[in-house]
């Protein structure tokens, strides 16, 4: 029952706050309620009123009404503090699964100062920020991530309790642009290296001692190194050799190098390997089913690889999809994607 209500409430809120990287807060989407202190304040007013009644003291009536008026005034103040504020997602973050991913927002105050604005996502919250009317400020909010892939926080809460802390006005921004979360690196097991050291051929060739090679037609995404170019020259057919031994090549980080391992595990191994390679400054390429990144080195390359690992098999969330943050429902819909267990 409670669940039902909360679901309905969520849906209602989501309708009011469509996903957008820019959200301007106004009466339509600001919620306001008394805080705990506000409730106590209400009780205090009641006690004061009773005191006034019992002692027939007009001045106590007066001060009670004054404080009541302040409460109502505070309601407007708190609301105005948030209304007109524009929050824009400037840069969705990148990070490692399990860590907090920094999302950069830019807050621009409207006609009024926006004082003591709190930005929070789940349990993470930023300290109060003050923005003068018409000015902007950038804020970086860590968003917790559980899985690799696209990270799109369901809601980021923006709240203010200014001026008196008796009322809180809040709203949410539901960003469209996702952050990218790479798999959590896990120390990969020793790769069975069958490639002999020193053999630095760009061309894929059967390594010595290789007893078996699968020949299969070229598919999109196959690395060009694996194409049997000689055969292509001979008969124009693009044939790819899947050399068993190639998986052990230190240049290539290969998804298929960990037979039997869970896909997510493999991605974690690969992330670890990418980091290793980056540490040593070695050149490496990344081979994933459906995507191959040519060997290279440097931070751009590393980032590219990590990003590829992060979003492999994932579909970029679409604006219309209103998934709960962290849920993976689109995965099961995506028939092409590999089935996964939790990382």
């Amino acid at each position, binding site marked *: 029952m409670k669940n039902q209500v909360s679901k309905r409430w969520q849906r209602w809120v989501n309708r009011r706050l469509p996903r957008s990287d820019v959200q301007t807060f106004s009466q339509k989407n600001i919620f306001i309620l008394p805080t705990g202190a506000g409730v106590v304040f209400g009780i205090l007013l009641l006690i004061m009123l009773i005191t006034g009644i019992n002692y027939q003291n007009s001045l106590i009536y007066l001060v009670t009404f004054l404080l009541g008026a302040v409460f109502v005034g505070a309601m*407007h*103040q708190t609301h105005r503090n948030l209304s007109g504020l524009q929050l824009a997602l400037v840069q969705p973050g990148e990070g490692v699964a399990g860590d907090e991913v920094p999302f950069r927002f830019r807050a621009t105050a409207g006609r009024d100062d926006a004082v003591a604005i709190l930005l929070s996502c789940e349990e993470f919250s930023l300290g109060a920020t003050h923005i003068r009317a018409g000015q902007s400020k950038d804020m970086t909010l860590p968003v917790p991530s559980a899985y690799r892939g696209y990270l799109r926080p369901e809601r980021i809460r923006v709240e203010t309790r200014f*001026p008196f802390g008796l009322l809180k006005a809040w709203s949410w921004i539901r960003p469209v642009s996702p952050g990218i979360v790479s798999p959590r690196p896990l120390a990969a097991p020793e790769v069975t290296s069958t490639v002999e050291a020193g053999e630095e051929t760009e061309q894929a060739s059967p390594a010595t001692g290789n007893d078996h090679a699968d020949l299969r037609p070229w598919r999109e995404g196959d690395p060009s190194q694996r194409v049997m170019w000689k055969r292509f020259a001979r008969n124009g057919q693009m044939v790819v050799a899947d050399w068993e031994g190639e998986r052990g090549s230190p240049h290539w980080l290969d998804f298929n190098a960990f037979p039997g391992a869970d896909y997510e595990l493999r991605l974690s191994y690969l992330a670890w390997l990418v980091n290793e390679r980056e540490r040593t400054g070695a050149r490496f390429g990344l081979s994933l089913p459906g995507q191959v990144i040519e060997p290279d080195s440097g931070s751009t390359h590393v980032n590219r690889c990590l990003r590829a690992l992060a979003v492999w098999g994932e579909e970029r969330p679409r604006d219309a999809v209103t998934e709960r943050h962290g849920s993976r429902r689109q995965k099961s819909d995506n028939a092409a994607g590999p089935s996964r267990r939790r990382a």
Partner: protein
Amino acid sequence: MSVSDGSSVLVAADGAATGLPSRALLWLFGSFAILLTPQLDRLPIWLIAACLVLAGWRGAAQFGHVRLPGRWLRTGIMLVLVAVYIATVQGRFTVDTAASFFVLAVGLKWLETRTVRDFYVLFFILAYLGTVNFLFHQEIHWSLVNILAVALLLVGLQIINAPDLPGSVKAGWKRLGLMLLKTLPIVVLLFVFFPRMEPLWSVPLVSGQARTGISDTMRPGDISNLAQSSERAFRATFGGQLPAYRDRYWRGLILDYLDGETWRQSERDPLQRPGRVALDGGVGELETGEYDVLLEPTDQRWAFALEGSRAVSSNVIEESNDLFRFRRPADTSVRYRLAREDAGNQARESLTYEQRRRYLQLPATGNPRARQFARDLRTQYGDVELVRALLTRFREEPYFYTLRPPTMGENGIDNLLFDSQRGFCAHYAGATTFLLRSAGIPARVVVGYQGGAPGAGGDYLIVRQYDAHAWVEVWIGDRGWVRIDPTAAIAPSRIESGLRDAVADEGSFLENNWASPQRYADIAVIQWASLQLDRINYQWQRWIVGYQGQTQMNLMSRLPGGFGMRELGYLTAGIVGAGLLIAGLISAWQMRRGGSRDAFLRIIGGWHHLSARAGVPVRVGETPSTLAARLARAEPAVAESARLFAHSINSHYYSDGSSAGRDRELKRLRRLLQTMKKQLRRRHSTTGKRS
């Protein structure tokens, strides 16, 4: 927080004590200090000292001079202070002691104000302390002081909610001021219309503290002590003319039992169940002959009345001997209304044997010369002549009216009458009654006030403690009780113009009370200022403080359509509802206006809206031209108008902006927007048909 760094750990430990920003805490300190001042006269010294020490401790901890006490020490301090409190209170449970306990609780809370939550707790209890203060002081200046203290609290709250905001103090005051200003109409309406209900349960306020004022016993010298006080006793407004000074005899109570040297009431007032005095002091214009008294709290039941009055308001009842009483002690200021009747229609009954005995009572022994003197007079005169002879003696013999009477010793009345011949009204009234009774004429001492100075504007009288007076009533067979005042015979100026003139030669007027403005009444500025202040306070007390049930009902009855309690309730709810609604509408309107301050912005907003509907939402930082281009790609039908529209906007923003061109541009933009809308609609309807 870095744990590895030793110093930062230390800071963190201290931070428990100083986690609250000093800037915010300062306002609570200020508010506390201000809120204590109205209670300084009431609170025991030790409690004030304890509060200062506790708050000071917290202040010192804030600046790192000391640490806040740990839990055990804190509990110890609390137990000690509560024990001291219990010892001093001695089981008396009154509002006074309860308020003292509340002050103590506030003081103790300072020691555990560590977190924002504690800050709020302190805020709440301090706000309530402001409320409690109103129970004890309702003058306008104390009210302003209290409201100021509450305002300080509210500024403090704003600072704790944004401690690092620069210029927050000034902005806080401004915000609070504007807020109060904007809500003032609602507050006023609520104050006027909120139904003043009967108390929900009986709550005694009697404080048991000593109050300055006349008491129900009179020893020689009592009233001369009172004469050193310029505190206000009451104020009176008259319908019609003010009575002449010499007629301003405010009767309070009758002392008819001489116990050694002390005059007492032979019938003690019955012990009262604690309760509240009814504050409804009658309403409406004062008729001629009516007068309205606003009595300062006395904690006593007696009400002061001119001779020959009858009760008009329901909160005073007339008792025997022409005295007036409240049903409950006057623990706050009370307004009541009386009317003077023409002398002569008083019922003239004779004294019963019982009464006669009471009014002739004398101690068995003492003052033999006075007794002898009375017997001598008796042999010469009848009742009326004897009284006259006595007054003549007072007038002609060198008797002095003085605020510095000598000590009388044993047989004080003999001493006063035959030796020192110097005394104050209490001395002479007592001696006269003694003489009359010795001569076999029933007599009694009346205590009250005589006189009263006109307030600013001269439309009301202020009667102060130094106007306290004692005189004599004597029973003359065919005239009933007759007032005689020996003081009038000795020092006519006391009765004609007041104590100041009566003791002018002596220079003893308020000689111990150097801070009283009345002492400097010959300095015109001080006199004027003090009277103006009193007038403001008087109006404040009559109309604001005294705005209670009957007053409200009376005001309401003047409105069309009989207003009862129930209607008032509805009206109040209506006011609150309407207030909220209006405020909501205003803010909605401001919001709307805020989005469209500029006509151009409004039109551009319309365009953005239209593009978004056409599936081309505007991007951040996009120029009109690029949006137009994208719109044209998405909806070729509007390509031309969009391009023109964007061009017009650009030319507006890059032109010098003369007002003539401005209107034309606006019109053009509006037309283009309309065109685009039409084009879009047409296109959608045709595609709709096609599908």
